[in-house]
């Protein structure tokens, strides 16, 4: 017996020795990797999911766009650090008086990754491609942004034609005005793609059965644009590798290849950064920001391009009473809410657009935090014993709403303070919260928000209040019309009209705009010059690595 015990002990020692030797091996390998740090030319970034498609025309999600922005460029880009449209593949453009004709003067000498020329013919090929989709390709699940911006294909669509008057001039004609066209063209969905590659790899032949679309070979293996990086490999569920494009018209700094590695779980992303497996990641949980900063990581904040609001469904009585809505607005301490439940740097909101959007008004009616006034207004409305349902989502973290439950807690405490009894109705975000809020009348107060697509006031308040909807439960033709008027007004009058519209909305007070939280990114200390953008127009060719 004793002898066996000794043997067992010997075994344990052996295993321990092996483990130590093994770890020594691994440690030395990592050291070797570290030694190469000075020659670092690969940027490893953690994405939260695979892209939906590598063909940006068939994509509408942030992860697809993140990858697309490295490989593709559109006619219109974004002024760095802002949400304002700026020249990119089109150096200038002229818009006709009636707003129906856009003449784009193109940058010359630009090549696609397949060495074909980018010219006006290519521009028109892309426009015609979008406008001629049929069947599955034309459905919102694939061509979301074309459908939304141009109103779809065929007769309903606003697109008329595109003509290449010479190699460097493309003239796009519309059937009816589309004032947000220029900012919308900065979306990756409207990137310029190589006509030769689109045809060769049958980008428009959405495969599969009639009711089960399958991505084309173009969208999974052969995306070809004019951007600084070319496609190398996509291992689904794992990573996407891109390499620098030798023939790029602009410059490429240190990043010669980009690896997007897919890490869905937020804590796993943070630990991957801490373990040195990645160089950076997006959607940093607000709770992790301090700890990461203290550990020597860089935290970069985007200017907020989103809005979080407390919606009020006027079908849920007495929310149709303006006095009640005003009382609720006065009852909420937005500063305290931001301090308690939102990331540092969050802007308190006064209206339904963030401050960098062009139609933002300094003169909207405001409802300062004043709970006595709130009680008075409730008394005036005869609603001293008000009971309200309060819907909020669970199992979700959106850029505008990192922790819905915490936001709910803060607001409902304020409401209880002025004598409103709140009935909490939490509901999982996926799959039913949005159905309840936007597809039914069965909700009262609710939390929701929006991250803008491009710099256009209508993209915010038009999306919310452009037409009657079950989310808000009111029908105000005058408001709808004033928004439409602003949308189709001359460009030079538009800003004033949008400001007026923002003021009218806040006078009417359909909901309480709460805040615009800042989304954060985290990086190791060697990453320099990451081009933070409120609309996530972040292209990695400008990044450098410090020693």
């Amino acid at each position: 017996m004793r002898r066996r015990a000794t043997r067992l002990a010997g075994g344990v020692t052996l295993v321990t020795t092996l483990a130590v030797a093994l770890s020594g091996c691994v440690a030395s390998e990592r050291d070797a990797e570290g030694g190469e740090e000075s020659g670092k030319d690969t940027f490893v970034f953690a994405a939260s999911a695979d892209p939906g498609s590598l063909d940006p025309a068939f994509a509408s999600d942030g992860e697809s766009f993140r990858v697309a922005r490295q490989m593709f460029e559109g006619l219109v880009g974004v002024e760095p650090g802002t949400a304002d449209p700026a020249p990119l593949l089109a150096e200038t453009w002229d818009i006709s008086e009636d707003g129906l004709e856009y003449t784009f003067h193109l940058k010359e000498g630009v090549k696609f990754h397949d060495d074909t020329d980018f010219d006006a013919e290519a521009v028109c090929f892309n426009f015609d491609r979008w406008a001629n989709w049929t069947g599955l390709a034309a459905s919102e699940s694939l061509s979301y942004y074309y459908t939304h911006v141009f109103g779809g294909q065929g007769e309903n669509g606003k697109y008329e034609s595109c003509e290449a008057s010479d190699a460097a001039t493309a003239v796009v004609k519309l059937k009816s005005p589309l004032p947000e066209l220029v900012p919308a063209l900065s979306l990756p969905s409207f990137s310029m793609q190589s006509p030769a590659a689109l045809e060769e790899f049958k980008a428009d032949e959405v495969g599969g059965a009639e009711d089960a679309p399958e991505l084309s070979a173009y969208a999974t293996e052969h995306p070809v644009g004019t951007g600084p990086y070319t496609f190398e490999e996509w291992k689904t569920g794992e990573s996407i590798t891109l390499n620098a494009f030798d023939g790029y018209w602009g410059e490429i700094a240190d990043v010669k290849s980009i690896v997007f590695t897919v890490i869905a779980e937020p804590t796993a992303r943070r630990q991957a950064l801490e373990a040195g497996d990645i160089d950076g990641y997006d959607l940093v949980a607000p709770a992790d920001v301090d700890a990461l900063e203290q550990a020597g990581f860089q935290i970069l904040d985007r200017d907020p391009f989103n809005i979080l609001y407390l919606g009020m469904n006027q079908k849920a009585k007495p929310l149709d009473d303006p006095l009640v809505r005003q009382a609720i607005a006065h009852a909420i301490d937005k500063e305290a809410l931001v301090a308690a439940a939102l990331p540092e740097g969050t802007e308190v909101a006064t209206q339904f657009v963030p401050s960098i959007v062009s139609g933002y008004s300094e003169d909207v009616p405001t409802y300062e935090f004043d709970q006595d006034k709130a009680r008075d207004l409730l008394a005036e409305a005869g609603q001293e014993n008000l009971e309200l349902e309060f819907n909020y989502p669970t199992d979700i973290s959106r850029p505008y709403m990192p922790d819905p439950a915490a936001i709910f807690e803060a607001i409902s405490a304020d409401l209880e303070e002025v004598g409103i009894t709140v009935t909490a109705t939490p509901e999982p975000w996926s799959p039913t919260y949005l159905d309840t809020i936007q597809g039914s009348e069965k909700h009262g107060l609710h939390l929701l928000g929006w991250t803008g697509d491009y710099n256009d006031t209508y993209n915010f308040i038009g999306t919310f209040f452009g037409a009657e909807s079950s989310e808000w439960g009111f029908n105000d033709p005058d408001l709808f019309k004033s928004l439409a008027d602003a949308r189709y007004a001359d460009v030079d009058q538009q800003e004033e009209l949008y400001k007026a519209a923002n003021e009218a909305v806040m006078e009417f007070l359909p909901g309480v705009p709460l805040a615009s939280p800042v989304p954060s990114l985290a990086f190791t200390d060697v990453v320099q010059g990451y081009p933070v953008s409120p609309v996530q127009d972040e292209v990695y060719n400008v990044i450098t690595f410090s020693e």
Partner: protein
Amino acid sequence: MIRLIVQRLLLLIPLLLGLSVLLFAWVRALPGGPATALLGERATPEAIARINTLYGFDQPLYIQYFKYLTRLLQGDFGVSTRTARPVLDEFITRFPATIELTVVALIIAIGIGIPLGYVAARRAGSIIDHSSVVVSLIGVTVPVFFLAFILKYVFAVELGWFPSTGRQDPTINATHPTNFYVLDGILTGEWDAAWDALMHLVLPGIALGTIPLAIVARMTRAAVSEVQNADYVRTARAKGIKPARLRGDHILKNSMLPVLTTIGLQVGLLLSGAVLTETVFAFAGIGSFLAEAVFNADYPVMQGFVLLIAVVYALVNLFVDVSYGLIDPRLRRQQ
């Protein structure tokens, strides 16, 4: 033996048919649908209706099921609504990852569980026995995501011994003929890649392996305790049989039957346990993909993956049943 295998394989057919009906009904009884998941925040009811028409989700259920079954019989599992790739392709691409992970977890569970259980039984009441109980309890009760967090914190973040996520360092340019990354590295002679893939398996393997380890250890302990007091063991010992042979042929081999059953069952649990482990380790296997599918109401993937997992589970159990015969000659004769 062959008759048993054929019988069991034929039984699979009604089993899978029944399961397909249940799955179909269950998946569609869930609230919400793929359209909402696809369109996000500002989907108009009209847009949702259009998507549902497009995918055929607005047709009567029996028609949808009939269509599904017709395709299924042709080997067509449908297309993921989230990734727009065929479900079968997704499964085949990702399954090797889950097999690799399951094998590592099993090696850990068996390699540690059986010796631990054996020693605990042979020295009942000793410190080793008591610690094995504690280890088993911890193994079963600590949630996988918590264990994963701690493992990563200690061995990836603080010590830097192992990578925290993924199957392979994405900056390694490795070729993957089989999608079994360790095997691929060995086959192609890319030793760095094989080693790196193996290192990526260690932490998730431990996280996934602890529960079966605990169960295997407890089962082994119970079985060995019983067998070591059996009459024939006493007789054998009285005959003066060599201790090594007594331990091997008489005690260990005879206690392995229930342990083997347990291991067979654990394989099924490992496949479902992989959902959590793969998600927290960003390990691109079938588990993490299934989790994403559930979150996005991706009907075809939910249906297809569960069916395919059921097939794998049934085959593993068949294999376990067949292997009984190899261990126990009595069963061989009965069959």
